[in-house]
């Protein structure tokens, strides 16, 4: 019997039960156990009221913190206190060259041609048409030679351009100007203010970033997401930023988009003409990329504190990561490290490596955008950001597994497909990122769990890299440094090759890369050999150096024939079965180079009589 009221319950039934238990301690009323009694009706009201208040307090308290808030408006408000503006929907962007051929045009030709913002193009992705528009106005001068205007590096974004006009009314306290499309890309937003409708001159306002140098005349606008999940702009109060006057007209010029749907678009055609000319050709420099949905609640929860920690200043390597992740979307994985940790050390630099969502490396324009736009003004003076391409170490796998056919309906071919899927899933979920460690035992576990009939498995990993050498006609030497993620396995027999390569052609002969020991050193010398009557004959004695412990191969001064293969694959055995990437390194399993060998587990099938035919897999090829 309760002598005290328990106040920890939230549930209606529990609260009523507590009240009932409490009433059992008194004698004035005792009909509380019967639903029809007046006391029971009163307890219902009391319990309901308590439950209601408890839930309200519970929700209110939850919504007060960034980590527990559920309503987006509250998450955004908490993030705002940390100075964080959630990312809007982002339109895919592509870079193109536009050539307007006017050589066949009659009459006087203009000397310059303007490509206005909003000029429309179209493309098709997966059978669906998408509209792209030119992001920034651009001008081109006629080329006397070709009789054409060339607009270079034109950035186009997917979506439709829209303008919203608002009249400023300073009688409204804190007047906000809402972007009334929830799919508006705020990175395309231009805010213009004109004196009145008749005025032809506009003041261009830029988005507020820092209090530095902002005064009463600064033309800045502030951006935030409101509780209705729309973005809205507002202006300074006349002290921190210029305050527009009554009856000024505010124009919000932006592009609303389908987000990520048209990522990868590469072939564009003009819809509009340019300056009345329609003979237009387009060259795509970079496929459309970077389109993404509006920042999710979880992403805000993750990024807002990181950005707050970095204080919009890129000082530590993590700051660079936070700032780039906030403002650049075409990121699958990112790694940043200080120059002092680089190999070789490079003091005064910070290194950034990004694996984009689309393609394996960033385009030159994307790199420029990161260094010149996103990081500019945020990084410490004298520290130079250096963007390096990710360095892929590919894995070739020999997979062997034993299975008990009595435990499955699947054939060995179907089991092979299931194992291949399991490896593919492991590659997708665990690798291909800068912190993606190849954990040998986890892969074995994934293979073992792929089907109940699989009794055990064996995976032999090999590392390989592809090089694309210059050929003889190019008149250039080839120098490659292959930086693998792990030291190489040394079998101990110095005559065995440590590296192997695919065939290429040199001096009209089919040759391969091999290696020979260097006396008194753990390093080895790369050589080139050909095979004559099953005997290896050296063609080039010194073609480079292998640093076995560092896991690097340096190839010097070799030139392949013009009819040689384009790509040479160089394969080595890692010293450890587990592989961990460093800095700009990424590990990826090449699905085309996964050899899977199923075999029946004779002991599982036949017991001890199956031991005679039982075979095991060698740890090396």
């Amino acid at each position: 019997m309760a002598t005290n009221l328990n106040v920890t319950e939230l549930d209606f039934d529990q609260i009523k039960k507590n009240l009932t238990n409490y009433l059992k301690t008194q004698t004035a009323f005792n009909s509380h156990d019967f639903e029809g009694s007046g006391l029971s009706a009163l307890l219902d009201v009391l319990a309901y009221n308590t439950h209601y208040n408890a839930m309200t307090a519970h929700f209110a308290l939850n919504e007060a913190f960034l980590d527990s808030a559920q309503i987006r408006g509250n998450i955004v408000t908490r993030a705002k206190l940390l100075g964080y503006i959630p990312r809007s929907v982002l339109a895919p962007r592509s870079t193109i060259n536009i050539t307007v051929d006017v050589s066949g045009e009659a009459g006087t030709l203009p000397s310059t041609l303007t490509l206005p913002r909003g000029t429309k193009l179209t493309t098709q992705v997966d059978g669906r048409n998408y509209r792209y528009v030119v992001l920034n106005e651009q001008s081109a001068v006629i080329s006397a030679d070709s009789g054409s205007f060339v607009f270079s590096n034109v950035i186009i974004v997917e979506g439709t351009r829209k303008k919203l006009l608002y009249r400023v009314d300073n009688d409204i306290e804190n007047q906000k100007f809402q972007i009334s499309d929830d799919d508006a890309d705020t990175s395309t937003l231009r805010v213009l203010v004109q004196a009145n409708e008749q005025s032809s001159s506009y003041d261009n306002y830029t988005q507020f970033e820092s209090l530095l140098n902002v005064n009463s005349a600064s033309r800045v606008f502030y951006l935030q997401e409101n509780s209705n999940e729309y973005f809205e702009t507002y202006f300074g109060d006349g002290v921190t930023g210029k305050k527009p006057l009554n009856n000024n007209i505010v124009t919000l010029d932006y592009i609303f988009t389908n987000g990520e749907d048209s990522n990868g678009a590469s072939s564009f055609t003009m819809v509009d003409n340019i300056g009345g000319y329609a003979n237009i050709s387009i060259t795509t420099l970079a496929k459309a990329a970077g389109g993404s949905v509006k920042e999710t609640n979880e992403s805000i929860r993750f990024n807002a504190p990181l950005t707050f920690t970095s204080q919009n200043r890129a000082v530590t390597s993590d700051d660079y990561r936070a700032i780039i992740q906030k403002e650049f979307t075409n990121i699958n994985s990112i790694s940043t490290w200080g120059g002092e940790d680089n190999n070789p050390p490079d003091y005064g630099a910070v290194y950034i490596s990004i694996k984009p969502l689309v393609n394996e490396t960033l385009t030159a324009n994307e790199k420029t955008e990161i260094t010149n736009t996103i990081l500019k003004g945020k990084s410490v003076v004298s520290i130079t950001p250096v963007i390096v391409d990710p360095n892929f170490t590919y894995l070739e796998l020999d997979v062997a597994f034993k299975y008990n056919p009595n435990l499955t309906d699947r054939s060995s071919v179907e089991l092979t497909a299931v194992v291949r899927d399991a490896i593919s899933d492991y590659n997708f979920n665990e690798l291909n990122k800068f912190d993606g460690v190849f954990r040998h035992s986890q892969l074995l576990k994934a293979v073992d769990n792929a089907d109940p009939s699989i009794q055990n498995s064996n995976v032999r990993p090999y590392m390989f890299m592809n090089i694309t050498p210059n050929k003889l006609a190019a008149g250039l030497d080839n120098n490659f440094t292959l930086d693998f993620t792990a030291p190489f396995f040394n079998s101990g027999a110095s005559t065995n090759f440590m590296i192997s390569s695919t065939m290429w052609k040199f001096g009209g002969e089919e040759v391969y890369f091999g290696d020979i020991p260097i006396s008194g050193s753990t390093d080895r010398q790369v050589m080139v050999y050909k095979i004559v009557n099953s005997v290896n004959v050296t063609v080039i004695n010194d073609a480079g150096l292998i640093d076995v412990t560092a896991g690097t191969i340096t190839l010097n001064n070799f030139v392949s024939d013009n009819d040689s293969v384009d790509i040479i694959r160089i394969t080595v055995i890692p010293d450890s079965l587990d592989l961990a990437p460093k800095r700009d390194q990424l590990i990826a399993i090449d699905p085309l180079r996964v050899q899977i060998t199923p075999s029946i587990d004779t002991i599982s099938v036949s017991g001890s009589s199956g031991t005679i035919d039982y075979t095991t897999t060698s740890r090396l090829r």
Partner: protein
Amino acid sequence: MSTNNLSDKSSQINEPSGVLGDLKRIQSASRLKPWTDLDLNLTLHPIRNDIIPLKDDRAIKYAVRNLLLTNFYERPFNLGLGANLRGLLFEPADEITKQALRENIARTIVDGEQRVQLLFIDIVDDADTNSYRILVKFRIKEYDSNETVDIVLKRLR
């Protein structure tokens, strides 16, 4: 409230003394449980100026009445409680509705009020005044007395 003194019966039991002690001194009393409940009308006592609690058979009778007059969805988190009589008021005035009223009353009393035993239900369809007159007779187990609840189901306006 009354008590039954069983001393006469115990005195008739012949037990050797010293085994169970002096049985003559043992008295077993069965007393009726007093029920007290809050009167939802909250009527004040004219002198004490305090609410007057409902006691014993009146408490049970009011509980039955409350239960019958409770409609579905009235009690929080207990949506099926009550006889839903007013819910049936606007159904066609026929035997089917009367049967539904009867079943609802019987179910409600059997499930919700264990202190009584239902004796009979009489439903009179008073078509002239667009109302039902419902008479529920039940026995209060504790006091072995019969009580009647009389309900006139009529639209309010």
